[in-house]
């Protein structure tokens, strides 16, 4: 369970989140949605402990973020950032193996169990044939899948993903969502995912969080949150575009 109470956070004096409170129950699949700049990434980064909080507190399973040691937190939350800039090249296998770091001692790079698990994750994410490929030679979508594979290899009860579907073709989008749904249903992994596509949210997420300008607009079961009225207001679709309850936005008229 993730309890966020009254947090404020931002960059260089600019507050992105203001007095933000929300509670994610255990093993929920929640889509975080909202216009650009609404603070979705900042929220995820805050929960992952990557963002300094100006005010407020975040508790995971009852313990405040600051009470976790780095390695303990790494066994709780896996985070797939929005962008991954690769400066130094590693192979897909090496990168996914890095996900095992929270469980290894500092002198070992892998154990036979780790290797088995990484192989399994690579198979699951359809990356097996790219195992020895270097990151610099991957396409945008392949790189993304490698990062998601790393997060899965981390074997955490919570996985957060910031726009994981960007750059992916439609088959891979569904594949990723299916993998996440499977983790959620079979292993009760809590999934918090920033999405831009309403149909995916409606199809996969049990809950949705609509954000605007650093504040919560609506939070609850997806079908209750993503109503035409809520989406219309939150995104400021105005009179030109119209959102219908199947998740598609069309031009009016």
């Amino acid at each position: 369970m993730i309890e966020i109470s009254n947090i404020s956070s931002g960059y260089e004096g600019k507050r992105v989140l203001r007095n933000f409170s929300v509670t994610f129950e255990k093993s929920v699949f929640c889509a975080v949605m909202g216009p650009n700049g609404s603070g979705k990434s900042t929220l995820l980064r805050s929960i992952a402990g990557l963002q300094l909080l100006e005010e407020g507190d975040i508790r995971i399973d009852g313990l405040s973020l600051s009470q976790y040691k780095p390695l303990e937190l790494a066994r709780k939350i896996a985070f797939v950032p929005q962008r991954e800039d690769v400066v130094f090249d590693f192979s897909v296998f090496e990168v996914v193996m890095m996900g095992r770091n929270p469980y290894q001692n500092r002198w070992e790079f892998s154990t036979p169990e780790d290797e088995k698990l990484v192989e399994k994750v690579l198979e699951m994410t359809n990356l097996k044939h790219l195992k020895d490929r270097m990151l610099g030679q991957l396409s945008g979508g392949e790189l993304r899948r490698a990062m998601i594979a790393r997060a899965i290899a981390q074997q955490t009860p919570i996985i957060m993903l910031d726009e994981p579907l960007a750059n992916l073709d439609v088959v891979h989008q569904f594949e990723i969502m299916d993998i996440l749904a499977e983790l959620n249903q079979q292993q009760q992994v809590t999934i918090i995912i920033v999405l831009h596509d309403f149909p995916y949210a409606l199809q996969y997420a049990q809950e949705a969080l609509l954000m605007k300008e650093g504040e919560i607009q609506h939070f609850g079961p997806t079908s209750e949150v993503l109503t035409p009225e809520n989406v219309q207001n939150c995104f400021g679709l105005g009179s030109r575009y119209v959102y219908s309850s199947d998740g598609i936005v069309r031009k009016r008229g």
Partner: protein
Amino acid sequence: MKRTSKILPLLLLIVLLFSMVVALTIGVVRIPMDTIWQLAKAQFGHADTTGVPASYGITLFQLRLPRIVMSVIVGAALAACGCVFQSIFRNPICDPYVLGISSGSSLGGAISFILGWDVFYFGVTIPALITGLLTLFVILGISKMSRRRSIETLLLVGIAINFLISAVITLLVVMHQREMHKIYFWTMGSLASISWSEVLMMTVMTILCVIPFFFYSKDLNIMQMGEDVAKNLGVNTKRVAYVTLIFSSLLIATAVSCCGVIGFIGLIIPHVSRMLFGNNMRSMFTYSLILGAFFLLIADTLARTLAIPAELPVGSITALAGAPYFLFLLLRQKKV
């Protein structure tokens, strides 16, 4: 993944030792291998050294050997520091020299020469460490201020600091002409007249500092993927960065206080070992230590033999090789 064997480093070490022996024979006087063997035996017991000029022993054990050992250790140390800097700053074209840490250290050294502190043990090292650390914190502060720690910002900061410090050193030198030659030669980097006590100090420091590098090698490895990723994987990025950078600065300060500013080793060597053996930090450290030792051994052997009986500053030799390579890297600046 580039597979790295366990035998290869050992093989390279043997070749390195052999090269050191070969370097011993070369110099103003050529001392043949069998004479070296004879003299070495004489050092540890009884051996017939009749027919060997008495000066050979001194040349060999008091001049050449400490210098050769020093070049190997300093080369290894500088290369290891380069690995640390590249990983922490996530930048394949930065090293302590480019960022101005080396010249920062040299400022403290120059000051201690002028004040006559160089007669004390650590009399040069401690001021060099202080100014080196100050430079490091200035660079860290500036790189933190600009939120995007872009490659360009860091390099420009390094260039500015290098300019500033060389201006201050020039002023100091002009105002204290008596030490001019000493300071000037020293800022160019030289391994001439190295004593065994300096070799001992450098060796101890290198061992002391390389231990934390290896201790944190896995964390440094993950930090190459970026700070957020590393933090999420449980790496205490702040601690790793501070510990390894401070130990690097300590190592740089010691190297600078013994043999001046020798540039570009920390830039070229990690890069070459990346190309040959991949980005894994543990193999990076292992191979960089060995290749760095090789590089400075060759550069210094050239420095003392190219213009016999004159002596060239070894810093200019490494710069002759390093500067074009740096330029090449800048132009080709893409994923390594």
